[in-house]
């Protein structure tokens, strides 16, 4: 079981966050950057969107644009660390904008007009969403691996059982003993068996 991301883990790290703001200069960007500074984050403001991010980033606040900038931002997000939290700053709620929000995989949305009271709650919940998603993805990959490994072990056991007319337990004992003797994992031994004797 994955433990859910604790409130403390999110709240206690707010001041360590490296935040990128991608939005044209102006009142909205100023208000957002200043509020993030008040919250205590390190903030960098970019416009136009940078081609790539040279420094590590934990959170991206980005405007949603009906222009080539959308592709640039999308590229930036895709190329970046998958654990980066993305928050959209939206002016319109039209279908194209909504699709772009989903395409970017945003973990939170702030609607304009922006006032400073909106920033911290969204930052906190978006951080939690992205941390949680990243954790679950990692866990999922581990489980996929484990299922694949188990299949190989089971196939090796079946082969041994047929070959020696063994019960499942005998096959299991054989694999464990071999693994211990050769100082390898059961999985490695199972894969050796499968390679030595290509299946029928």
């Amino acid at each position, binding site marked *: 079981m994955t433990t859910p991301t604790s409130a403390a883990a999110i*709240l206690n790290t707010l001041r360590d966050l490296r935040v990128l703001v991608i939005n044209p200069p102006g009142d909205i960007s100023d208000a957002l950057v200043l509020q993030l500074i008040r919250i205590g984050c390190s903030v960098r403001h970019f416009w136009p969107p940078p081609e790539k991010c040279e420094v590590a980033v934990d959170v991206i606040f980005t405007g949603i644009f009906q222009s080539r900038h959308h592709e640039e931002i999308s590229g930036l997000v895709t190329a970046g660390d998958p654990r980066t939290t993305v928050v959209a700053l939206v002016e319109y709620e039209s279908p194209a904008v909504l699709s772009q929000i989903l395409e970017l995989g945003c973990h939170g949305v702030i609607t304009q007009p922006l006032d400073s009271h909106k920033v911290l709650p969204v930052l906190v919940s978006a951080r939690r969403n992205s941390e949680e998603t990243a954790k679950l993805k990692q866990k999922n990959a581990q489980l996929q691996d484990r299922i694949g490994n188990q299949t190989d072990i089971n196939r090796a056991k079946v082969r041994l059982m047929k070959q020696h007319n063994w019960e499942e337990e005998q096959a299991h004992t054989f694999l464990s003993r071999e693994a211990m003797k050769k100082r390898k994992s059961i999985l490695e031994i199972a894969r050796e068996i499968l390679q030595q004797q290509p299946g029928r």
Partner: protein
Amino acid sequence: MPHHPDRPTLGLLFSATGVTADIERSQRYGALLAIEQANREGGVNGYAIESVSHDPGGDPDRYRLCAEDFIRNQGVKLLVGCYMSHTRKAVMPVIERADALLCYPTPYEGFEYSPNIFYGGPAPNQNSAPLAAYLINHYGERVVFIGSDYIYPRESNHVMRHLYRQHGGSVVEEIYIPLYPSDDEVNHAVERIIKAQADVVFSTVVGTGTAELYRAFARHYSTSARPPIASLTTSEAEVKEMGNDAAEGHVVVAPYFSSIDTPASRAFVDACHDFFPDDVTITAWAEAAYCQTLMLARAMRAAGSWYVEDVRRQLYQLELDAPQGPIRIERQNNHTHLTSRIAEIDARGAFQVKWQSPQPIRPDPYVVVHNLDDWSASMGREERR
């Protein structure tokens, strides 16, 4: 829309009735004293500064209506007032929509910024953090929380709980009583405190419940030594109401106490004695209201105008030699650089300052995790009682 007033006018939003009337009256007279002094200094463009007042009676809806009346009907956009957090929250949207300005001379829980509000009381990094360091250094590790049941106590306790845990202390009981508690509710709370065998009690009870709590506490501990009650809000006004016996030995953190013996403080106390009605007490929050109103007046004078945008620009330039020491507004978050002081109440009901910050503390209203070590170093570790 109403006209811009042809005289410099401030709207005062302090309750003269209701649960926080004592403290808000002291704030209101602090503001009025500042206006009187500013007018003696020559007012603004030769005009005397005027004030309009309402009594919102401690009720958030009435605060909102009063603010609307000042702004919409009278064109007055420079306001001073509010004590409890939910009254400030009620006024905030009205102030922001009209691009008016509210000076809020009260300690609060932090985590707020409005371009239209200037915060004149301490944020948690200016009161809770030093107080926690002091309590842990001077008393034991077992603390009981008691508070009035609204946002400020709950948020203050959140901060305090974190600070205590960080230093191996434990919160053995957390009690909330209504803003208007009955005798039974106060007595029951005190019984729970005694049962918890705390080394120190952290109280965020505000208003008239404060004196009742301290008195009940004194009654229940009549024969044995009682642990100190530490507070962010208990002031000279509440001490006067509860009596010196009930107040003795308790601890308060605030930027100012009327017992401070500096020329600026003595001048303020003398002026208050001349100006305040007999039943109004000098408190830290009266000082805060006085300072903010005086800053508004000086900003109007420097701008030669009482338009919000002119006044706001000037406010950031000011440094005031306040009764507590020098103060100024932090441009980044509209809160105020303030000195922090911790005092113990003596047998005569006077606040004896035990510690003060070496210089004014920069306001930082968005601290989720406070660091006690910042303060412990400047306090030394005395023997625990």
